[in-house]
């Protein structure tokens, strides 16, 4: 079993956890800041890993215990050898009003990470920008879009359904500016 240490990166932790869950048949999909961190190559730092999962907390706890994680409160887990927290927000897995039924599998040396695709992550961050005016989420959407090809057609259909056209234009201009730098 791979050891978790203080130097374990979010990518390594996500792979270890995701694989451990997969091994016992539990479904959990990495979303949130850790996914941004992975897709931005570490340009964004997150202190926690959010795996969206509708599995029972007791089953998640049992799967994570052999790795050294203990349940802190609710669906939130800690490990003595890493500062990263792990949390399992309950489903449904969705970005804005769009339910997610398919996502990406990211192969790593330490295991397969079940993770929202770059396009889904851009939607996730844009949802926070569109509905909550969260400027850091705009920056995170740009970081992901800078490094990964996106399914622009799906993204634009989604934006239209979310009623976020004006915010989407702000995102496109921000992406254009960093691409020109």
């Amino acid at each position, binding site marked *: 079993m791979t050891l978790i240490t203080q130097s374990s990166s979010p990518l390594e932790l996500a792979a270890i956890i995701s694989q451990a869950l997969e091994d016992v048949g539990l479904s959990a999909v990495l979303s949130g800041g850790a996914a941004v961190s992975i897709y931005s190559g570490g340009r964004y730092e997150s*202190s*926690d890993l959010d795996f969206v999962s509708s599995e029972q907390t007791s089953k998640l706890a049992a799967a994570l215990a052999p790795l050294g994680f203990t349940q802190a*409160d*609710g669906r*939130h887990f800690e490990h003595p050898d890493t500062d990263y*927290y792990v*949390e399992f*927000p309950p489903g449904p897995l969705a970005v804005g009003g769009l339910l997610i039924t398919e996502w990406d599998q990211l192969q790593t040396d330490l295991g397969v990470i079940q993770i929202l695709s770059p396009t889904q992550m851009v939607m996730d961050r844009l949802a*926070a920008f569109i509905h*909550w*005016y*969260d*400027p*850091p*989420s705009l*920056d995170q959407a740009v970081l992901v879009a800078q490094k990964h090809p996106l399914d622009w057609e799906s993204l634009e259909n989604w934006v239209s359904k979310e009623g976020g056209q004006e915010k989407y234009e*702000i995102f496109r*201009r*921000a992406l254009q*500016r960093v691409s020109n730098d």
Partner: protein
Amino acid sequence: MLEAVLGSVAAERTLLYLQNYGEGYAGSIADTFDMSPSQISKQLTKLENGGILVSRQVGKARVYSWNERNPLVKELRRLLQATLEVLPERQIQQYYRQRRRPRRKGKPA
């Protein structure tokens, strides 16, 4: 940048804050820019009386947002957005990147 048009730094900052965050109250805007709440409050009242903003009471705070029923507000916001997009990065990070996404109670920061 818009100070010359709007007549004061307080007016410019109040409007840019609201464009960036969608809504706000005097205390939060004043804290962001390290200005006095009364200065910001005066601007908010003036903008509400002019039909640019609307307000509602939330707990002890009066929260201001855009009066979207005023057709000129859209044009004003377009100008403010254009201004935000050419501000120096240092100013953007200092004043316009506060988290607005909800955080679950008890979630480690």
